[in-house]
Each structure stands twice: as C-alpha cells, then as structure tokens.
C-alpha cells in the first residue's frame, strides 16, 4: 500500500520551538541563538557583553555544550542567571532541550536571553529552538573560505560577527574576502568586526544589542 504524506521531518522540533517562542514573547525576552565553530569566541563575547551591559539590561544565558559546565561557570561569574545544557552526544541544541532549560529560568526577569549553541558550524543551523534571531561568529583563524564551505549557517543567520581581528597580522585570512564570501551567501547579513581581546568594535555591537532589546519591548 502506498501512503501519500507530506510531513516536515523536523515538524516535532519546530512545534516545540514555537511553544518556546510563545513563552519568550509572553515574557518580553529577546532571544538570540549564538552559533559558531568550537572556539570562535562565543563565551568570551558573552562574558564581555554581560559585564558591560548587565547594569542596563536584564540578561540570562543558556549554555549548550556536549559535556562539562565550564562555560556556565564562566558566565555565572558575571552574576547573571545561567543554565547549562549537556547534550551528551548531540552536536546541536534542539527545541526540547531549550524547553526544559527554560523551566529553570525566571523568564519574567529576563529581557535578553542568549543561547550559546554547541560549537559546530553545521548542525545547529538546522534546528529552530524558538529564537528571535540567529547570530553567528566566524573568527579570523578559521580562514576566509568558511562561508562557501558551510553555507547553511551563513544563510540562516541575520548577524555575522567576525571575531579575533587582532590576529589578522598573523593569519592568511583576507578580511575583505571573508566579507565578500559571506555576503555572496547571504546579502542581508549584518556584519560586526570585533576583537574580544583588544575590544575593538565591541561598542557598536553593544549599541546594537541595546537597540534590539528596546525595540523588542515596544
């Protein structure tokens, strides 16, 4: 017997993602899904951003890692609410993991929720988790060809943060080509060039964040 069906394979995940989104909206939280390959600087950028903005914005963090609580421990030093998810074998966060993590957070007290995804340039881009925006980091040490090799994440993200620009003199990474390749995959990308080490470019990132949080409140 042939059965005619058309079903999205990720429908179950997407349904829970919508439920998460509803909860976030209800509580007026702006939710950013932060993605990158391992070590591009997700946690470092969060530490910096939180230390500067925590007086002005109520921030919460969900940390996704395959193992360990190391990143959550780093974030908790900044004195904001943080929940660590250990995915075990999974290479990405999914909506159900987030759904369970939300229960441990006081969402009504959070205006800006960061979800640091598992370090991986492929899989996280495939799974909606209820975020308002996908933000990715590509760091100078990864080279300028990553948009072409891993197009999905560049395609799915609204914001691209190019980190570690302090290392440009030491790498054969062409910043101009990195931007061209990124825009070739997604011409709508909003690009920030930063260094978490020298703090270059961070001010415009902070201003953008504050503006987005304010817009979300309206």
């Amino acid at each position: 017997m042939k059965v005619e069906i058309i079903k999205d394979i990720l429908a179950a995940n997407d349904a829970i993602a919508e439920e998460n989104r509803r909860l976030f909206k209800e509580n007026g939280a702006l939710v950013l899904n932060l993605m990158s390959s391992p070590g591009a600087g997700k946690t470092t950028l969060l530490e910096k951003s939180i230390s500067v903005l925590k007086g002005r914005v109520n921030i919460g963090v969900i940390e996704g890692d395959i193992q360990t609580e190391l990143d959550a421990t780093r974030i908790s030093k900044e004195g904001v609410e943080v929940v660590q998810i250990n995915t075990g074998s999974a290479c990405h966060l999914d909506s159900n993991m987030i759904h369970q993590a939300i229960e441990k957070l006081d969402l009504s007290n959070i205006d800006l929720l960061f979800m640091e995804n598992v370090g991986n340039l492929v899989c996280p881009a495939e799974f909606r988790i209820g975020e308002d925006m996908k933000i990715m980091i590509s760091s100078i040490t990864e080279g300028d060809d990553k948009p072409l090799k891993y197009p999905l994440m560049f395609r799915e993200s609204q914001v691209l943060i190019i980190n570690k620009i302090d290392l440009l003199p030491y790498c054969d990474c062409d910043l101009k080509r990195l931007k061209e390749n990124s825009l070739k995959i997604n011409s709508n990308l909003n690009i920030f060039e930063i260094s978490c080490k020298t703090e270059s470019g961070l001010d415009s990132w902070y201003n953008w964040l504050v503006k987005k949080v304010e817009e979300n409140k309206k």
Partner: protein
Amino acid sequence: MHELTIAQSILNIINEELLVNNLSKVIKISIRIGRLTAIEPESLKFCFEIITKNTKAEGSVLEIDYVPIRCKCSNCQIVFTVDELDFICPKCMGSNLKIISGNELQVVGLEAE
C-alpha cells in the same frame, strides 16, 4: 552528525503513519532534501539503516530526492537555479532573492504492507 537525529525523526513519522494506516512492514520511504540543508545523503542512509534495525522499517529503502536550490529575483522576477552558491540574479545581478526550493526536509511518501 545530526543525520542520526534526522533519521530518528523520519522513523517517528513512519511509526505514526503505520499506526494510523494499520500497516506493519515498510518497503520504501521517500523523502525530499533541499541542497541548502546540511544533510549528507549517504550519511543519512547509513544512520537510517542503523536506527531501523529491529523495527518495522528494517531493510526498507530510503529514497532521497535531492532538491536543487531555486531562487526568484525580487527585482526582475526570473527564476533560476543556484549552482555554485552564487546567490546573485544572473540577469540583473541583484541579490534580493526569494528562495523557492532547496530548504526541503520532508517525508513525501511511504510504501508499506
């Protein structure tokens, strides 16, 4: 390696359909995967084979339709296939495009008894 998660999701959908239609053995399952997704077809087939061991879908054929990326230019309205990930209109060089296919991740048919 999220092909394993995808394979599991496909098996879940199969199981629902078997239940609804009162069937017990899967012969073939057809899916559609857009080229924009980050799914590796061979890896998915491998994961599917492993995950369906000792289930009603064991030994079934996973038929994959790999869908090209097609865009429509918002400026001059032409529809074209994106081959080399060049998201640029070949006619007007505009980059304001609507993706009309290539994002698929769907189960589109089931053959079972």
